[in-house]
């Protein structure tokens, strides 16, 4: 099994398309960082408009923490899109090049093979989120420094710099789990559709649908609680003034369960299907 994992990792990093994807992600992050900075003053003015009448402010809110928060807001759409393309590509390219057949002609266990692809997909996702987190923290603080964070969520929430950093870190962790879910889903979609373009379209559709359904309010019932699309917003919970840890843990466990479900289904289908 470890050889399969090593082989998958080797293949992933030997292909130039992986680096194109990483390059794209970092470029986007930089772009967001600087555009957020230029927009930042307007945003803060907007938030504090009513208060300016009665108060004056000492210190600046336009600091690295606010920018990381703004990066976080936009990250969870373009990141899974690119991740899904890379991850599903690890399988669709093997179908297209028929190297999958060559592999299956060797004494390799089918379920172990696909399971190792899932594990590498998850690992890669976590790596990418980690790198983006590290770079956004690094760049934001380097250029714009630390400071208090203001978030509008059910009111104006102000967080101390140290508190803000912790919350931002937790958000990245929570977001990472969502990203793992999408990566796993895209690999399962690849197993179903095999062909690259179809897989991208279905994956993109899945992502967009999830995002749309996220905004729809199904009311305060079990569906709203358990539907997977709703879980992708869990990172927001860290920016309520008091963190509802129970809800966060519940959502995270549920997300994890969904990941396992998609992965299990994928492995089952792959194992059952004929190759070629």
């Amino acid at each position, binding site marked *: 099994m470890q050889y399969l994992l090593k082989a998958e990792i080797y293949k992933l990093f030997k292909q130039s398309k992986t680096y194109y994807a990483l390059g794209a992600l970092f470029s986007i992050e930089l772009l967001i960082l600087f555009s957020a900075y230029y927009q930042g003053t307007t*945003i803060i003015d*907007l*938030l504090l*408009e*009513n*208060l300016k*009448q*009665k*108060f*004056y*402010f*000492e*210190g*600046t*809110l336009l600091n690295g923490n606010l920018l990381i*928060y*703004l990066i976080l*807001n936009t990250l969870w759409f373009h990141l899974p899109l690119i991740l899904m393309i890379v991850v599903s590509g690890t399988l669709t390219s093997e179908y297209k090049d028929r190297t999958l057949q060559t592999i299956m002609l060797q004494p390799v266990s089918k379920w172990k093979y696909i399971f190792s692809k899932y594990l590498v997909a998850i690992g890669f996702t976590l790596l990418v989120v980690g790198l983006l987190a590290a770079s956004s923290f690094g760049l934001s603080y380097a250029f714009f420094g630390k*400071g*208090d964070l*203001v*978030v*509008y*969520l*059910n*009111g*104006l*929430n*102000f*967080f*101390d*710099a140290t*508190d803000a950093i912790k919350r931002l870190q937790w958000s990245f962790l929570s977001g990472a789990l969502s990203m793992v879910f999408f990566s796993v889903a895209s690999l399962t979609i690849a197993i179903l559709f095999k062909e690259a373009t179809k897989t991208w379209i279905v994956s993109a559709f899945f992502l967009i649908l999830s995002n749309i359904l996220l*905004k729809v*309010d199904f009311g305060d019932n079990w569906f709203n609680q358990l539907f997977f699309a709703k879980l992708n*917003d869990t990172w*927001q919970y860290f*920016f309520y*003034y008091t963190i509802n840890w129970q809800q966060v843990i519940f959502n995270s466990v549920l997300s994890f369960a969904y990941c396992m479900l998609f992965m299990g289904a994928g492995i089952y289908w792959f194992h059952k299907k004929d190759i070629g």
Partner: protein
Amino acid sequence: MKRAAILFIFQILWMGLSAQEIDADLLKVKSRLDSILSFSTQLKLEVDISFINMPVKKAQMYYAKGKKVKFSSDDFVMLPKRGLDFSLNSLLEYSFITVDRGLEQRGAKMYKAINIIPTDKRADFSIATILIDTKLKRVMESEINTKKDGSYVLSFQYNTDARVLPDKVTVNFEIEKIRIPINFMGKDTELDRKKMKAAGTKTGAIYLTMSNYQIKSVL
């Protein structure tokens, strides 16, 4: 002799007339405050506004007679525009008249209520009501109706009888609910709409706790 007497009576009458314009107790408090040349203090700020959540903040405040109050802080702090002027100078800057409103009770004690009404158009408030502790010669409460920035009620607390600078100040004010455009950030929608419609103008408060006063005064 007769001329001197008439002059003397005239002077007394004149003094009496002038004295009617500014309340004596107010003047006593003012002169006490005026003896302070400068001071610095550490502030602890607590915000109590319904739609704002902010942790306790710390700042440093510097006052020098005749100059604007200065602040410094490591964090981001929100300071009320009014209520940080302990010397009464902002109220008494331009010409004004006072009206005695009698006594008002706060808690177990009675304080003297005085209206300060500016007569100069340049003053930035329309009327202020001050509660003075006549025995201890200090301000207990002041309600200021500004022309542009709404009204404030400032309550002062002192830890000992001797102090003229407060140890705790509570600033109460009115504030309008925030209007934020929807497409901005995060999970704003749902609940807030209902609350916002119900809201309108609300009241809020800021609690300032002073410590470690470094005072330079005229003895």
